[in-house]
């Protein structure tokens, strides 16, 4: 395996992207918190938001892994 230049320009761009993506996940969670989804249907909607936020965080981790060259 070749050593990955973690300070290379593309790795830096990916790490920055990961940070921005995490911000999106945080803002999505915050938006749902601000609304305060209540009741059975509201809770279901909250679960959907949580599920998608988890997917967004997983994208951030994938960006970090790509920046480090590990799958």
């Amino acid at each position, binding site marked *: 395996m070749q050593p990955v230049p973690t300070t290379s320009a593309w790795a830096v761009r990916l790490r920055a992207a990961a940070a921005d993506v995490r911000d999106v996940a945080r803002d999505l969670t915050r*938006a749902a918190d601000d609304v305060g989804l209540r009741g059975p*249907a509201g809770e*279901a*909607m909250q679960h*959907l938001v949580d599920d998608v936020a988890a997917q967004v965080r997983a994208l951030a981790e994938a*960006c970090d892994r790509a920046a480090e060259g590990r799958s």
Partner: protein
Amino acid sequence: MRVLEVDGHQLERLASTTLALTRRLELVSAPVLTVAHGAEVTGPAAVAAAGAAVRRRAACLARLRALVRALALALHVYAGVEQRLTAAFANVREPVGLPTWATATTVPAVPEPALVELLAGLRPCDLDALLVSSPALAAVVVAADSGGARGGAGAVERYRSLGPEQLLRLALLHPVTWASARAAPPAARYAANRVLVAADLDAALTRLASAPAGEARARLGRAVAQRREWLHGSVTLRGAQGSVRRRRHQLLHFDPRGDGEVVEVLGALGRARHVAVFVPGTGSDLRRYPGTLARMRPFAAADPRLAVVVWQGADFPDQPFDDGVLPAREHVVAAAYRDAADRAGPALAADVADLRRAAPPGADVTVLGHSYGGAVVGSALVHGLTADRVVHVSSAGTEDAPSRAGGAQVFSMTAPDDPIQLAQAHDLDDAPQHLARISPPALAPEAAALGLALRALVPGEQVGHGADPDLVPGVVRLDTGRFDGTDRLVRGHSGVFTPGSTAWRNLLATMTGEPVQVLEPERWRTHLEPWSVQLDDGVPRLRPPHYVVDRTPWSDPRYRPPQRPSG
């Protein structure tokens, strides 16, 4: 309005924010694409990692778009909000991949796999709550299932290996398949039919939004209210001892097409010792369904061991002006034909077989048919209905089913002045004599001639409902009696359903296998008054033929009809 227990404007804000975040995510994660497609990344591990990030990004964006869509569809219950969203986001540019709601004034119910996949991640109870509260979301799920999605029919056949949670999830995500799946447990069918009702509510709301003022709009409004009741209302059963049982509506079948079909269970079918299936008569449709439900609720409330099934699982003959017109085969004319009963009978027989399987072993089944429903029950017997007891209530006829068909004990109940007697056992063969009998004596020859003409002109094989169930050997006739604490006889075509009478208790007794009070016909006498003209405040009015009670044993306050076991 707080349908989702969330203020509509707040939900609108969440939808707006989520759409904006989708756009933002697409932009900030764009380096993933440029890096993966560039030449800078080398080495198999790094290339694989970049590829994985690209795939993750695509999945993530799809989920976000599906969430935006779900929020937008949930917002459909808030009138007008969607139009504001449309205006706000119609100018958002690609490549966000605008959800279709942003450019449409109504949501097309088309299969949307990404959205259904997003919903599939929910716990079944959450999914149930969301679909019931968000009709437009339910419409998307129904459209996806109608398109032949996975997890449908095959899963129904394998349902015995599934746990309750898995069953509920499959039923909610594949409502078209599961709502009518005979092999499916009732709880799964109840859930699937809730989604169908919610989807139909979405369609009704869409039509209502553009309906002009008038009767059509009012009718749509009633349809919306009825579906909301099925989704959010409950059935309360108050027992005589003050017990209260409350359950959400349990629809085993729902089809809004035409006059509409519905089958609803009152009580706990899974714990029932007695199951009673009630088939109503002419004019039964979704609009009149609440009245039928109200008639059956006191029976279900009377005994916690009893589950009552209101069966409108077929198209019944219409009443006059149901569709604003009086076509040739309406009301008494349409009800005289047996074709609707012939079509409904096999469906009823099959549904009763399903109910027997769904009820605990040993539970007994009583099938009751009122008026035209009696003919439906007769047809079902001909088509293999098996029941412990069959009850003809003011029945149009037996459709010539044998009196012990399916091993059932058959009962019959007709109030002494019930006008159904004018139809029982009559068809075109005796039309001349029958018309002469109900006509004023002076017009009897003309009436007989009319009967002859009808017999010659009308195709007769589909007219009439066979034998009068009151007179078939082996059938036990039940006394309709009088109302408790009064000397008032139970009368007419539907008086038997008013609680607090001999007739009502007899009906309940047939449902629960208790002893019944039987009719002593020799102690009664009635006669038929033909068509006549009577003066009403000096104004001549036509009085239709009717029965008059000349003698009743109930005129003796000490009278008690003989009893016999019903089971």
